[in-house]
């Protein structure tokens, strides 16, 4: 049975409301059947997709759209692989033409091995995209000053990393994320770093609007089962956040009453 979340506990980005607080990628799966099954199990309503050259020597190759229906899921085109603002803007203009919508995920990355967000290039690309009418959800460093600037520019969601892309190291920066959550007036999503269900729950417990992940599901031994685990973890973390955790204390505090003990 699904965890009972309060009715109307939705979140809104760029005027669109969603119930699921799990956004999943569509990359790294064994095949499209597994992609579709994992996404279904995750309960996600938004999926990220990449934009790449068509293989002209095999135009009848199966397409993602045939397995993950863009009418059922909101496609969020990304700029993965872009290392300059110019490439990111070109890629998303193509995505808008292919898909016909303005909601996009901007990521401009520095070089391996960190693939850390290149913030100067991200600012440049965000400015160009917003001017061109895009609604930009932006992957960024866990830097509250950078996040504020992106928000002031008009980005519709701030998406700091919890750890490097594809690392599965979990949420390494809960204190900084908490500060960013506190100051954000737009949705804040942890994007990158989640490795397993407890990581997603931690992100939600500290108050993130939603979690974006790909490798944690796709690279699990059983991706469909992990997708289900992530769905439950995000819901559990959200519930815990809404419930308000107990205060931490240094000493013990017995749960059973001390009165009425036998002598």
């Amino acid at each position: 049975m699904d965890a009972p979340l309060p009715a109307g506990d939705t979140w809104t980005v760029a005027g669109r409301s969603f119930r699921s607080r799990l956004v999943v990628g569509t990359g790294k799966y064994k095949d499209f059947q597994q992609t579709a099954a994992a996404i279904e199990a995750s309960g996600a309503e938004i999926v990220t997709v990449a934009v790449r050259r068509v293989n002209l020597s095999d135009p009848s190759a199966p397409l993602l759209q045939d397995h993950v229906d863009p009418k059922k899921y909101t496609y969020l085109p990304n700029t993965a692989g872009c290392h300059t603002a110019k490439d990111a803007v070109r890629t998303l203009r193509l995505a808008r033409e292919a898909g016909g919508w303005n909601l996009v995920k901007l990521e401009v990355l520095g070089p391996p091995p960190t693939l850390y967000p290149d913030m100067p290039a991200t600012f440049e690309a965000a400015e160009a995209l917003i001017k061109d009418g895009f609604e930009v959800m932006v992957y960024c460093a866990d830097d509250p000053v950078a996040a504020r600037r992106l928000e002031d520019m008009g980005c519709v969601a701030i998406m700091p990393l919890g750890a490097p892309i594809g690392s599965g190291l979990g949420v390494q920066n809960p204190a900084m994320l908490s500060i960013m959550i506190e100051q954000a007036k737009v949705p804040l999503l942890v994007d990158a770093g989640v490795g397993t269900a407890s990581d997603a729950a931690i992100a939600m417990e500290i108050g993130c609007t939603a979690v974006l992940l790909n490798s944690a599901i796709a690279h699990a031994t059983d991706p469909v089962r992990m997708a289900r685990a992530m769905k439950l973890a995000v819901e559990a973390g959200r519930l815990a956040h809404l419930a308000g955790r107990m205060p931490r204390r240094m000493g013990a505090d017995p749960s059973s009453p001390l009165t009425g003990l036998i002598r």
Partner: protein
Amino acid sequence: MRTVMTLTLNGESRAFDGPLSVAELLAGLGLDTSKIAVERNEEIVSRSRYAQTWLGSGDSLEIVHFIGGG
């Protein structure tokens, strides 16, 4: 008048008989135009203009679609 044109398609140089529109090129390549996007010399060609956009020798085209990504 028929001409031979050289186009660069997704980074690969190929020869075509002209005149040739974007619509004719895509049909010849067997592509479903509802699922792709085309950029010609770094400018988007909107789907509604495929039929009246004529290609010239030396044009460079990027033809893309959505694939799985994170």
